[in-house]
């Protein structure tokens, strides 16, 4: 359900058990709309980075940032400024192969989209593709003609461009 803008928020959190629960609980409790969330290590072993994609109006997004900042295990929250960040998403797509022509069509598409084929079976191909969500959507759309059997998407991960950083001051 899209009601407003989609924003990407970069959050540095303590790398401790229960922190993801605290963050996801906040979104549910405050009725914020989360589109995707990715979590992984940051440069520091004791700090994780969450990249959260949220959808809502300006006021809601401001509340998301402020409420996240209130959590004790959240060290830093920043909304990534439009046009000043890079983002990627990865998708694994298992595509149906019915005829030899299907196979060559898919391989052509994968080349154009600079994806990779990472598994080959008699009646399917599994494709790895990385890019912006729009690119992934476009590729998926093409694959619908032959048929998508299974799909796994990671959600967006992102970093601010160049000198701009979201990091915890030592």
């Amino acid at each position, binding site marked *: 359900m899209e009601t407003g803008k989609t924003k990407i928020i970069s959050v540095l*959190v*303590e790398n401790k058990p*229960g922190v993801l*629960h*605290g963050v996801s*609980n*906040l979104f549910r*409790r405050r009725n914020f709309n989360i589109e995707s969330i990715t979590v992984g290590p940051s440069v520091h072993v004791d700090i994780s980075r969450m990249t959260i994609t949220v959808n809502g109006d300006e*006021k809601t997004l*401001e*509340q998301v940032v*402020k*409420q996240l*900042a*209130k*959590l*004790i*295990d*959240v*060290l830093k929250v920043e909304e990534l400024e439009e046009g000043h960040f890079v983002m990627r998403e990865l998708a694994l797509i298992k595509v149906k192969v019915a005829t030899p022509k299907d196979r060559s069509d898919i391989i052509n598409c994968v080349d154009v989209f600079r994806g990779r084929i990472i598994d080959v079976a008699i009646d399917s191909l599994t494709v790895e593709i990385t890019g912006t969500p729009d690119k992934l959507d476009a590729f998926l759309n093409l694959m619908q003609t032959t048929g998508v059997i299974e799909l796994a998407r990671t959600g967006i991960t992102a970093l601010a461009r160049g000198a701009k950083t979201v990091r*915890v001051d030592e």
Partner: protein
Amino acid sequence: MTKMSGAKALIESLEQQNVEVIFGILGGAILPVYDALCGNEKIRHILARHEQGAAHAAEGYARASGRVGVCLATSGPGATNLVTGIANAYMDSSPMVAITGQVPSTGVNSSYMIGRDAFQEADIIGITTPITKHNYQPRTIAEIQPMVNAAFYIASTGRQGPVLIDMPKNVQSDIAEVELGITDKVEARGYRPALEPDLAKISEAANLLAEAVEPLILAGGGIISSNASDELTQMSDLLIAPVATTFMGKGAFPECHPLSVGCIGMHGNPAANRLIGEADVLLAVGTRFSDRATANLDTFAPNAKKIHIDVDAAEIGKNIEVDVPIVGDAKVSLKLLNAAVSKKLPKMKVSAWSKRVKEAKEQLSPLLKDRPKDLVPKALLIELRKLLPENTIVTTEVGQNQMWSALYFQALKPRTFISSGGLGTMGFGFPAAIGAKVACPDNPVVDIAGDGSFIMTEQELACSVNEKIPVTVIVLNNSVLGMVAQWQRQLYNRRYMAVNLGKTPDFVKLAEAYGAQGLRATSIEELQKAVKTALKSEVTTVIDVPIGSEHDVVPFVPPGCGLPQQRGDY
């Protein structure tokens, strides 16, 4: 380095936080902590009769004293019974540390017990995540003291609130070499309460206030928790500005002051509700603009430029848009603002606005209208103010008793009016009164109750009698769940459903059954006599005051309406 159990390390850490009292109930998973408390002369343990009572008592203690209240319970049902009390403290921003037992993190039959649905296991960390500022579960003895230090620091600073520490039983009973010392260093790097406001914003606010023709101050509970009443009074004097409070702010400004216009809100003082709509500059401090306070936002202070001071940045812009946002402690910010305003202001003269305030109070304030002769709620509460010394701490239950108290019982000092504002917890007042009495043994403490609410935590009579904590409970007894009955009467066309309490207990006999004193008052004269007897009593007194079942709390802003649309004779 000293060898000691985790339970002992916990108790010593609490001692270092100067904890003098714990309200609690024991159970299997917290036994090592109780064993470590045995014979302790620094910390008094008060045995509640239900964990909810323990939590409310800890909050009553905290709100009366300004110190962190501590409650203690076992795992599973002990912990879940605390939940209402923790949620109440969270909604009303009261400093509290709740400690619970937990099943062992390692077990006899396996390397772990937590997560295996052990006897009396409840995921209290998961359960309390949305109703605490933070929670902790130490897995080693070395973690205990840093967590206790952080818990007290987090609970008592910034926007105050509850913190829970969940203690696995093996962590309590295991023995290890630990180093305990008073450590100022608190390990919570993600927690930096913003106390000092932005000076540019202070000066912007000062400009607005200096130019205001019809300024009004709205004081919330934040004034009380940051002990900023003096600064508030100074600001009101400087500007000759009327002061309205929210329900949580009741007591922040003496309600007998000529510039006090009472509480705003659904059942607010009509003078406050009217004047806030006329103000041209609104200075709101330590309030979150709750729906019950503001009513419909479209008609809330529509003409006013709004300055909002709050220690919690997330409260600014959450419910209403403001012109000058100031994130900071109420006391610190008001001090700076007072200084800035006093430099800009010429000597204030009595203005048309101050005349208007006086006139609005005379026309609209319920207290300046006639006091009825019969023992109806309004007469009772006005009379009660006369009977009780100024230092009396009053708690209330929730419902009509609470709203009548807000309207007709003047609070004269901060921390003398304690009620469940945000969560609206029936049964809060009586245990909170016990906690307040422990905090302030020299002050009389009175719970203004309804029969429906009192029954919810009445078992704490056993606690107050046995622990010799004498308080007074005045039960406005109408044999009905009055506030919801009023809504059914006014908004559901008198279709009464599940509000009639039928034959309620004889509260005089009930009190006596617990070893407390029971009295009944059916007239103003009997009330005067009963209250005087109760104030002298060394044992808790319950005064049963039968009232009719159809009294309404009026005036009333119906749901969805704005403050100016308040209706009903009063």
